[in-house]
């Protein structure tokens, strides 16, 4: 299998403040990878570098073997940790927008997920509840048949029932053979679906190993290991 995401000596600083220090990673295609770390550890920075929204200070990052560019964005579905939808749009308009720019957008899949939520396509996004806006963002992301899904804190700030919906939506709707890169600090909730775990702290990789292998080697869950490694 080829690497879908590679980091080689990756550095990123904001002025004099280092955010990532010498990250080396090679993520094989397929599977669900958890990028796990406390707040301010560099998770979002790494994701933004993968999406080409930031440029490295040193080293390089490759997505599908090439530097982040429109070509990599065409096969990468990204769910940011922020409200990113235009409030004035209707749900239908937002779907048409995604379908227009992303050739891998599956409208039927999106409509099916929307109907589960009971959201009308004619509804304006600004009239949706906070939770439904986040779910809509997830639907627009997972409705794509992408090679790589990057989800930044998809379950933060939502109730447990919504978390189940989100994780189901991720596992049931991802394209076959695709890779899901889940970035979160809520490890207990996503641990059951993880195939690979990456722990990051202060911009450095602390662990990069298959999830099951780590559990067996350490004799504890990833959540317990995380709490132990990042205890205050």
């Amino acid at each position, binding site marked *: 299998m080829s690497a879908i995401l590679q980091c080689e000596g990756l550095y990123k600083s904001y002025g004099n403040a280092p955010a990532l220090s010498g990250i080396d990673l090679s993520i094989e295609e397929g599977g669900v990878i958890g990028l796990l770390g406390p707040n301010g550890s560099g998770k979002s920075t790494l994701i*933004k570098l993968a999406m080409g929204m930031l*440029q490295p200070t040193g080293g390089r990052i490759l997505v599908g073997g090439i530097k982040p560019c429109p070509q990599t964005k065409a096969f990468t579905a990204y769910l*940011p940790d922020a409200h990113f939808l235009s409030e004035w749009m209707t749900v239908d308009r937002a779907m048409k927008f995604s379908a227009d720019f992303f050739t891998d957008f599956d409208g039927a899949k999106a409509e099916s997920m929307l109907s589960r939520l009971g959201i009308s396509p004619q509804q304006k996004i600004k009239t949706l509840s906070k939770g439904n806006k986040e779910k809509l963002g997830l639907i627009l992301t997972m409705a794509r048949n992408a090679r790589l899904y990057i989800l930044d804190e998809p379950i933060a700030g939502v109730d447990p029932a919504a978390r189940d919906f989100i994780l189901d939506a991720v596992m049931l709707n991802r394209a076959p053979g695709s890779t899901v890169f889940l970035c979160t600090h809520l490890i207990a909730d996503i641990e059951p679906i993880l195939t690979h775990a990456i722990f990051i702290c202060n911009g450095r990789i602390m662990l990069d190993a298959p999830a099951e292998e780590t559990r067996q080697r350490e004799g504890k869950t990833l959540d317990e290991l995380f709490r132990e490694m990042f205890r205050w």
Partner: protein
Amino acid sequence: MVTKILKHELYAIFRVLIFFGIAVLAFAVAGRVLIAVMLGSADGTAGLLFVLVVMFYIFAICALIGAAYALGISRFYKTLFTGEGYMTLSLPVTPSQLITGKLLSSLIAVIAATALSFLSMLIFLAGWSASAMQEFYDLFGEIGNAIATIAWNDPWLVVEGVVNLIVTLPMILLLLFFVISVGQLFTSRRKLATFGFAVGLYIAYSIISSLLMPHFAYLSVNVSTHLVSWIQIVIKIAIDVGCFLATRYIIKNKVNLVI
């Protein structure tokens, strides 16, 4: 991809601009009706109403054209440097395509707003008496003849005028795109930084203009007015291209969405 960006940007702009356009047309029609009422009545009330309507009509035209610029600029800022930037910057498009799409949509909005304003004036003026209308037609006819005479004697003046218009129209928008982009480089007080940079740029522009004016005047009198026109055109093209490239560099390399 530029056509897709253009399509969505035009929809987003015109869904708001249409209301300004309707207001302009409504005031033009109201003015037209009031003229007919005024002409057929000795009552001064119609005249007073007419003055008010004309006042609001002029405000509405200014608001329409101002809104066309403002919507283009605000969409540039909102879709690139706020939460919506996550969507925009994850699209499979280059920064050049983004800037081009947004620039073209803003230009189309401004041109459409200007065209609608002229159309509304025709509606408004249709209410005047036949003799007044004849005077307007004669005036436009004289302007047309004057332009034709100038073009016949010195066609380069017309060419320079057209080229000047083409390079000046996008300049304001590109300058504002650039100013907004520079403001985003600051980690705090971005709006203040944007305003400060805009003021600084205006001061620099005024100083450079006042330094260059005497030289242009000398060249115009002693060498050729055409040379001065073309030098000014080249400077404007350089500003357009410089702002475009600088904005593209910032979007490509320096944007950090922290919401």
